[in-house]
């Protein structure tokens, strides 16, 4: 499988464009012949992490890498950072605002759902600096 490297800037609070990066990622992986089961898991995790950038971050970017090991998604933002990651990982915990909730999000399922769908999930955050999430999906 050929190498893919793509970076998608994601703006804070831009709900109208939220999901465009994930839709493009899904299309690209489909073209590469990624199985529909893996495709679905990548798409869900990618959309969740993209929504998190829109809802919670001050802006950031989503990076797609594909290599022999699988699909890698990296979300990197410029803040504000998560003070308590254990709490943020808990199902049902959310700090989403009214706007996000009115669109049907902010149920506190995002991070746990990413972790569930990815084969590898790592999150690192520093208050005032930003949050990085790395996910890997095996192709086989």
């Amino acid at each position, binding site marked *: 499988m050929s190498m893919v490297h793509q970076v998608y800037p994601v703006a804070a609070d831009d*709900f*109208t464009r*939220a*999901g465009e990066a*994930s*839709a493009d990622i*899904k299309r690209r992986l489909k073209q590469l012949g990624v199985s*529909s089961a893996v495709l*679905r898991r990548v*798409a*869900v995790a*990618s*959309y*969740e992490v993209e929504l998190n950038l829109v809802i919670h971050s001050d802006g950031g970017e989503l990076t797609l890498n594909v290599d022999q090991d699988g699909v890698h998604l990296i979300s990197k933002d410029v803040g504000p950072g998560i003070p308590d990651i254990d709490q943020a990982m808990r*199902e049902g915990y959310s700090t989403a605002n009214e706007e996000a909730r009115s*669109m*049907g*999000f*902010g*149920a*506190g*399922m*995002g991070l*746990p*759902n990413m972790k*569930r769908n990815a084969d590898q999930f790592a999150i690192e955050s520093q208050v005032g600096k930003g949050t990085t999430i790395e996910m890997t999906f095996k192709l086989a």
Partner: protein
Amino acid sequence: MTVADIVSILNARVLCGENRLDRTVHSAFCSDLMSDVLAFVNEKTVLITGIINPQVIRTAEMLDIRCLIFVRGKEPGEQVLSQAKELGITVLTTGDAAFTTCGKLYQAGLRGVAIEWPESEDET
């Protein structure tokens, strides 16, 4: 059951995708919370919802949901519909509330998606 069956059971109006009414439907999921749709739906299904913003179409796109049923007479805007059209998603609207919509479809034999609860802790 087919999408055409759903249209007749609910007396629903087809807002787009009328050329795909012969699609077979195996299960349904009903929620206004897209977070929960993303967390619980893991098969091709019909989504019953009262939320009509563009993120519903995005959510459907990510999960390969091919049929949306908007309840309580909700109708999305032109932009949302054209996005659905582009993705080949059939969109229906019914005047019934969600509970009644689900009841009618359940009575006709349609069942909910299988819910898989996440493992409490990663053992590995």
